[in-house]
Structure formats: C-alpha cells, structure tokens
C-alpha cells in the first residue's frame, strides 16, 4: 500500500510487539499443554494472528508465512478437528524458536534469512488432514474482539448505557489509514463518548493494524443514524454498527455487511442524555496509562539524580556548618528546613526513578518453563517446576545479567540433582522431581533460591574429583571441611556427573555462574543433603547504579566497600592473627579466614608507613562463597553512594571498580572485592 513510506520508524515498534507476542505465545503454549482451555487457545491464536498481521505489514514474508502456518494448526485445534499432542506442542515451540531467530536477525539488520521450511512442512503435515483455513475474515473478527480487561470495562459501561460497537474494514488500497480512523473517532465523539478501540488508540495512530478496526462507544444517536454517518467515511469497505454484547464476539456474520443490513436488536429509544452527565465508571482503557521510555533516557535520569543526591548531601553539610557558626540566625533555621525538604524530595525522586527502572523478575523466570520442559523430555525425567515470587522487582541492569546464571543452576539441578523416575520411586520419593525457584526481597537485596529434592551433592565425590583434576593435592583435600569441599563445584573444569551429556557435565557452567554473580557484587551459597536435595542461594543487589557502602580509611584515603559484600566487621587484636605459609589468617567461629592488609594492595605514592598497633579493624567480605578479611585503618560509616566509572584515562585499576563523590565533595574510590580477592591470592 505505501511502499514509499519509511518503514524504519516502525521497525522498533514491530520488534517490541513481536517480543511481547512471542512471549505470550510461548508462555501460553506451555500452559496449554497442561490445561488446554478454549480461552487459552484463543489467546494464542490471537497472538499468532497479530504477529502475522504486523510482520506482513512490515514486509517480513518469511515471518508471516510461518505464523500463518501456525495459525492454521491453531485454528484446527480450536475447532476441535485436531487434538493437542506433545508432537504438535513441540512443533509449535520449534516454530517459536525460528520466529525468535528471525526476529533477532531483523533486529540486527540482517534481514529475515532463517530457513523455516522444515517447520512449515511439519505444521502442514498436522493441518493437512483438514483443509487449511482460507484467508477468510474470520480470524479478523477474532482479532477485533476486545481484550479481557477491556471487556470487563465495557461490561461495566454497558450497565449504564448501551455500548455501540462499530466495525470498520478499510479498502485495501486505502492510502491514509489514520485519517479514516480519525474521521471515525470524531464522528463517534460528536455526541458520544469513545470507550475503547481494537486495536488500542496508540496502535491506530501508528497505523499498526491491517485493514480492520473497531470502536466501542456510548452515543446519543440511534444505531441507524450512526450507521449512515459512519458510512460517509471514504475508502471504507464496510462499516458495521451494532449494540455490543459481551458474548457475541464470534457470532458475527463473516460476510462484509453494509450498515443498512446490519440488523440486530437496537434499543434506539434509549436516547438519553448527552455526554456531559455521563459518569462512566469505565476507565478509558489502554489510553494514556503507560508510556514507553527509552532505557537510555532512564539511565540519564538516574545519573542526574545521582548528581542531585551528591549536591544534596553537600548542601546539608554546609547547612550544618553554618548552623554551628551562626547559631541563632533565623535564616539558618529556614535553611535547615529547606534542606530537610530537599532531602526528602531527592530521596523520593531517587526512589521513583529506581522504581521506573525496576522490572519484575518474572521476565527472567518466564524463560524457565520452556527450558525445563524440553530438558526433562530429552533426558527422560519428570520435573515439577514451581516459580515463586515472580513479582519481585529489581533493576533492569541486574535482570539483564542474572538470567544465564540462573538458567545454568536450574539446568544443573535437573540434570544432576533430580534422579530418574525409577530411582526416585525406589528411594520412596514421588516420581516427579520438584524444583522450586523463588525470589524475595531482603533488606536492600534480592535473594533467589533454587531448591531441588534430588540426590544432593556427594562432597566425598567432589573431593575425589577435585584431586583428580589437580585442583588440590590429596593431603590438602583431606583436611578440607565438607563445606569447603563443596566450593569446588564452582571451579572450572570440575563436574561430578559420571558421564558428559549434551546438557551438562563438561565442567564449565558453574564457574561462569560464579563469575557472573561476582561481577554483580552478589554472593552465592550452596546447601546440600545427600538423598534430600540441594539448595543454591543467590544474594544480589537490587541495582548497580547506587549502592550502600561501608566507608573505610586506608593510608589516609577513603574507600567504599560495597555493603553487599560485607559480612561483618571486627576489631582483631594482634595476638589473634596467625600466619599459615606466610599468609596472615584469623579464625572466626572455626573458619580460617585469610587477612589482606589493604594498605599493601592500595599503594599510592604518598605511602604512609603504618604505626604499630595493638588491634586492627577488619572487614570480613564475602565473594560468592569465599570469605576474606580486609585490614583497614579505620571505619567511618555507612552511606549510599552513586557509582561513577573511573576515567578511561586511568585504565583498569586492580581492586578499584569505580569512584564516587562523598558528601564533603571529595572523591572516594569504590573497592572491587572481586579484584582484591584475586590480587590477595597472588
């Protein structure tokens, strides 16, 4: 229709929509397997149809063809001529994978070159038994039924006054689709009130629809009057007006009806009231409730707020200084009040922007059911996956990076943890293994547990393997506690699986998990009991932009240790410090913890020799499951700091992950616990 139209501006929209619809497709298809309901099928069908429509509009024919074939199969499932089998579900899910592949190719500007002929062939096999659905307008009608939420609102509105439904089909050669939409909306709003539209008004404005759209509205005119008015819009194939009823979404005749012929019960007598006194409880659904914001803009906002926070702290300190100087000045009092107010506002502002950047962890969890299903099927295990706390929110910077580690752990739990059904039965456990992934907030952190009721990890075996792979000497291994042994599962190149499978067992994976979590400043813990199961606990910061830190002083310079890594602080006397192989250690509650003197690591050119002291402040930090004690000169306190990256001019500095600006305007460096661990080891 409009080949000369610049499509690139719509590409983003298309990709976003494709993401959403693909997600729906996958989630619902997985659920469909367990409990097939007509509603669910409709939802899937609608998603596939939307995808087909928008991809065709964008000219991605490969994409459109595949969705079209899916639609055929789905339609037969819906009609009951085809029964949902695992094979069909597999085929549909495979198609989704291809669609995702096409989508990412399109996103990367590589076109849509993905071969999906096999998928199409398989789908056609399924649908071959019945004649494939023609390009009939039937699916169009389904598409145009309002979404469940809209429907609820419309039902509420219909209780007050009749709700009209106007269905428009534009001519296929229609040049200015939105102009026609706009005309329709103006007619409807002249003496009436628009309640909803399908698709929603945003999409209408963006012309993100094929040829059909529908409006739902109150109006004081009779149906006939409206029909005549609406028929006057140009470039229309048909315009059909009727009183909307909830259940009739599919019953509409599929022929294109001219308005005059669309006869239905029309309570035209209800000519009550104008628009002014219509206190409709129905919210104007889907319009103006949310705004899509570019992530970069949110990041920029976050930076600005960060600077504001710094200045706020500065102003409040100046205020305190002035107050000490001019104690009884009334202006000082006013300043104090204002500062207090600014403090509250900036805190709120920071909070709100943080919230705007938050996403529910569901977005990560949603990837799991599919993976678990496929994996269980492949290795012949029965898995009951439970996802708890999907609504727990965290910053998108964290969301982006935790997906893979979680997936790794989950895969391990299923592949190594859960036993085969026969073995489980023999052990008196239910046939299907249970894996629970749960997320919850704890203080300023998010805690994610992955718990299985499988066989547990045999630490003896880990010990054996560790010696075999040369990670530790035999003698040293024998001295290790069970807990210490378990740490080897995070070592590269170690796997306790007897045989290497396609899924896991090569001994990569857990070390990636650990390094990913460390990079986030998180901690990972593992707890296991043989025969009962294993539990991995991850503790992660909610955001990577602002952290709470412990301020310490080393050689006269202030450093910030991320509080997420801090386990405890101690005052250690000289006599408590022992040396093992020239390495200073202390024993805390039976655990031998190596000490690192930060002043030896953080050497600067104005190095001040340490004065001998009776006791030292030690900050115990945890990196994943490791513990280490950092000896500092003094502890200053706890503070929220905004992370700023070091200038590239300085290059990479071992042990320092960034800088921040303190309340007094001075710069402090943020200690990189990960880096300290590695430099402490050397």
């Amino acid at each position, binding site marked *: 229709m409009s080949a000369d139209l610049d499509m690139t501006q719509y590409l983003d929209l298309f990709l976003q929509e494709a993401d959403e619809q693909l997600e729906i497709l996958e989630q619902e298809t997985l659920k469909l397997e367990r409990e097939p309901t007509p509603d669910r099928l409709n939802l899937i069908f609608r998603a596939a149809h939307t995808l087909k429509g928008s991809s065709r509009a964008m000219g991605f024919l490969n994409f459109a063809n595949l969705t079209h074939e899916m639609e055929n199969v789905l339609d037969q499932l819906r009609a009951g001529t085809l029964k949902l089998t695992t094979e069909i579900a597999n085929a549909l899910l495979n198609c989704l994978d291809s669609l995702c592949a096409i989508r990412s190719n399109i996103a990367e500007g590589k076109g849509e070159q993905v071969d999906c002929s096999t998928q199409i062939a398989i789908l056609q096999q399924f649908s071959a038994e019945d004649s494939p659905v023609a390009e009939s307008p039937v699916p169009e009608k389904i598409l145009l039924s309002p979404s469940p939420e809209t429907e609820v609102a419309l039902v509420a509105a219909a209780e007050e006054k009749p709700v009209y439904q106007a269905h428009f089909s534009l001519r296929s050669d229609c040049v200015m689709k939105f102009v026609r939409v706009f005309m329709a909306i103006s007619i409807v709003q002249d003496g009436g009130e628009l309640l909803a539209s399908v698709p929603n008004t945003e999409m209408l404005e963006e012309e993100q629809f094929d040829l059909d759209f529908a409006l739902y509205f109150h109006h004081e005119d009779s149906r006939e009057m409206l029909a005549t008015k609406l028929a006057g819009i140009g470039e229309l194939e048909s315009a059909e007006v009727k009183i909307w009823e909830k259940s009739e979404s599919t019953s509409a005749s599929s022929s294109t009806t001219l308005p005059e012929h669309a006869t239905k019960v029309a309570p035209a007598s209800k000519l009550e009231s104008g628009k002014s006194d219509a206190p409709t409880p129905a919210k104007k659904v889907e319009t103006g409730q949310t705004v899509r914001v570019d992530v970069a803009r949110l990041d920029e906002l976050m930076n600005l707020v960060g600077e504001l926070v710094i200045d706020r702290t500065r102003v409040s300190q100046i205020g305190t200084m002035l107050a000490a100087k001019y104690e009884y000045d009334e202006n000082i009092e006013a300043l104090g009040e204002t500062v207090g107010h600014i403090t509250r506002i900036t805190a709120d502002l920071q909070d709100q922007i943080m919230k705007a950047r938050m996403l529910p962890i569901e977005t990560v969890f949603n990837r799991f059911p599919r993976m678990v299903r496929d994996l269980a099927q492949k290795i012949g295990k029965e898995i009951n996956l439970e996802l708890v706390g999907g609504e727990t929110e965290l910053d998108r910077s964290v969301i982006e990076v935790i997906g893979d580690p979680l997936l790794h752990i989950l895969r391990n739990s299923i592949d190594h943890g859960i036993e085969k059904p026969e073995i489980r039965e023999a052990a008196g456990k239910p046939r299907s293994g249970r894996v629970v992934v749960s997320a919850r907030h704890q203080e300023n952190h998010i805690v994610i547990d992955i718990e299985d009721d499988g066989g547990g990890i045999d630490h003896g075996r880990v010990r054996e393997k560790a010696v075999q792979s040369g990670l530790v000497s035999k003698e040293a291994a024998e001295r290790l506690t069970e807990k210490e042994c378990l740490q080897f599962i995070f070592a590269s190149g170690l796997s306790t699986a007897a045989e290497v499978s396609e899924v896991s067992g090569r001994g990569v994976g857990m070390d990636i998990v650990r390094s990913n979590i460390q990079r986030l400043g998180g901690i990972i813990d593992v707890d296991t009991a043989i025969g009962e199961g294993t539990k991995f606990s991850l503790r992660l910061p909610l955001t990577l932009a602002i952290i709470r830190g412990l301020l310490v002083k080393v050689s006269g310079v202030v450093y910030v240790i991320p509080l997420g890594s801090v386990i405890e602080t101690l005052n250690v006397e000289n006599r408590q410090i022992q040396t093992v192989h020239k390495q200073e250690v202390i024993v805390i509650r039976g655990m031998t913890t190596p000490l690192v003197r930060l002043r030896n690591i953080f050497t*600067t050119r104005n190095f001040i020799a340490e004065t001998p002291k009776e006791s030292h402040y030690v900050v115990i930090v945890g990196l994943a499951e490791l513990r280490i004690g950092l000896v500092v000169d003094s502890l200053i306190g706890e503070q929220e700091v905004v992370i700023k990256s070091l200038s590239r001019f300085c290059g990479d500095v071992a042990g320092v992950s960034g800088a921040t*600006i303190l309340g007094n305007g001075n710069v402090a460096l943020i200690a990189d616990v990960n880096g300290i661990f590695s430099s402490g080891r050397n």
Partner: protein
Amino acid sequence: MSAAPTLASSEQLVVFRLDNESYGIEIFRVNEIIRLREITPIPRTGHHIRGLVNLRGKTIPVVDLHARFGLITIEDSDSTRIIVVESEHGNVGIVVDEVKEVITLTPEQVEQTPALVANVGTEFVRGVAKQDGQLITLLNLDKALDS
C-alpha cells in the same frame, strides 16, 4: 627555516609555570582552570597520575606534569592550579605551579625545538617561542597525556 613552521597561523596560548620555566598550551584545548582541591590518589596507577578530583559532580583524573617530565616534585602552593583540558579519554586535569597569562603567538615567533632545551623530553615539545625576551616551551599535549 628549513622545516614547516610549527604554527600555521597565529595562535592563542595559555602560559603556565612549571618549576621555573614557562610552558604554553593551545587555548582551545583548555576547558577551565580551577584551584587546587583535594585529590584522591588512585592506587596502583602510573606515577604521573595524581588521582581524581570532583569537578561539579564528575570525577576527572589529574596528571602531575612534574612527575611526567621527570622534574623535581615541588610542594603545592597558593598559586598551584589545575588546568582542565580535553584529551581523547575525556577531561583531564594537569597540575601546574602557576597560570601566568594568555598570549597570542605569530608563526614567526616559534622555532623548532633547539636541542638545548633539555629540561623536558623533546617528545613532549612542539617548539619554542620567544615572547618579550622569555622562552615559552610549547607542549605537545597529546604526547604529554599519553600514558
């Protein structure tokens, strides 16, 4: 003059003092000049990087030209300033003992580096200019900041 002139046309320079010599850098490279403030040292970096300072909510690295040029380190004084210049890695501050003036040089005033100006490694020098009887060393800022 045998080689091409160092300056193609007249140029404005910021002249500063380091130790007891005068140096000049192109004015368009200078963002601002600030008083010395608390510099946070960065551990385990090159000797010439003095640390980070807070420039209106941003942290910028500060280079010590004494250390860079192998001069004797001089105590900071009241006249010590930080000149904030643009480098390929963003803003960088350079610590100088005093900022003296802004001058305009004509190409004729500039000579190729004579070998006798030996205080500073020749790789950092673009040339030498004479102004009112004093010698001004023209710094090659990119080289001087290149670590």
